[in-house]
């Protein structure tokens, strides 16, 4: 069985709590690892201590220390993380953020809705699509490296 961990990179504690609850409420029971800035996220991804790499990354853009676009760039430049699905989940709808995300290899870009029920539905749909419907990249899991 491959690893199905979700990595949530989010610095806002409220967005974190609301995202985690939305997963729970939609019966997405995968382990969710939360990293609260870009540097932490990179350290987690490149730890090299046998920690399995996540099956899905939800990435905020506006992050302390290392921004989301930089995290994405670094991930895509490394063969160990190049193929992990990354969904950018952010408040921004600036053209340069959307374009920058796709240019740096984001798989999807979702703007966080303000209304919580819409937000919860977005999180549910993302989880359902990327973890259930979408065929995972072969080899992403504990034994890949």
């Amino acid at each position, binding site marked *: 069985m491959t690893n199905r961990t979700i990595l949530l990179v989010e610095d*806002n504690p*409220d*967005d974190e709590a*609301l995202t985690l*609850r939305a997963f729970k409420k939609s019966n997405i029971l995968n382990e969710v690892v939360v990293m609260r800035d870009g540097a932490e996220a990179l350290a987690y991804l490149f730890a090299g201590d046998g920690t399995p790499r996540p099956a899905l990354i939800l990435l905020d853009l*506006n992050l302390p220390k290392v921004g989301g676009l930089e995290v994405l760039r670094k991930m895509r430049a490394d063969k160990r993380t190049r193929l992990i699905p990354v969904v950018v989940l952010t*408040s*921004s*709808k*600036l053209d340069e953020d959307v374009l920058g995300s796709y240019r740096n290899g984001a798989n999807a870009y979702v703007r*966080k*809705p*303000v*209304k*919580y*029920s819409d*937000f919860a539905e977005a999180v549910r749909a993302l989880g359902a699509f990327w973890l259930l419907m979408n065929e995972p990249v072969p080899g992403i899991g504990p034994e890949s490296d």
Partner: protein
Amino acid sequence: VTQLTPLADDTFVALLEAVPDAMVCIAADGRIALVNAQAERLFGYERTELIGQPVEILVPDAARAGHAGHRAGYVADPRPRPMGAGLLLAGRRRDASTFTAEISLSAIDTDEGTLVAAAIRDASAWPGVKDPERSGQSTESFIYLVSHDLRAPLRALSGYSEILLDEYGGILGEEGRGYAERIVAASEHMSRLIDYLLQHSRVSRAELHVQPVDLGGEAARIAAELQRREPDRRICFTIEKPVQVLADRRLISTVLQNLLDNAWKFTSGRGDASIEFGTARSEDAAVCYYVRDNGAGFDSAYAGKLFQPFQRLHSARDFPGTGTGLASARQIVERHGGRVWAEGAVGAGATFYFTVDGKESA
């Protein structure tokens, strides 16, 4: 005025003129030894006026006193500062106006001593950069950034209220649930207000891509979409086409969208609703475009308020909305050098007119 021979080399001069940044080379004594055409343009001087002058001529008055000290400090320990690590400073033009500049420095050893080469980029237009000359623009960038940040706490307000309703509804009781629902509704309202701020700031910063647009074709497309969304409503659309204008397609379509949305909304109570798009002549004989409906209309005493943001002439209960569609329409039309106005009477429908100049206005 001395020309420094090692720098007068043709290749070097051609290179200097070819770089996209403004370049100013400063001799060890602080006098300007060489400038390129970009520097002439940026600062508004002829190069003969600059060569031999102290470089402080290009520094705003307030920073001048300290500048010589900084300069000596740099020459004593000259490390190149690449563009990315460049400093945001201010430059002073010939007419004494100032601008935000990104400046990077490097030192060149020559027979006449160390020269400092400064590459200067006008940073006034960069997002988030405060510029004394264009404070209006920096305010818009500020509004844009703040509007984004306001959405996060709003999501928390809305989210926790919905969770309260969802999981603690029984404990809250009917009155408590009512209050939580009001928090949810108020958050949504505020979210729409923030969206308007974003939209406003986006329009004011947008570059206009003016091209021929068929307003009639756009209006027909929008009308079909409205009808598709509410197929049960019977509306008689009359649309003149083609109606060619020179405008930014995306923005001018937003104007039509807002006016037609409005007409669609305010005719909702009528069984024989009709909406018309066409052209007419305004008082000064210029061509104007209009959207007319036979809906609820408005009291003409308040016609001036229609185009103000967040102003509503009808109760939210009768006709929901944020009161921002017409304000957006006005902003876009004015960016095109046109104007908007409205005619109407209570219960007798409304007509919204606009003109498009086809040229961008500041």
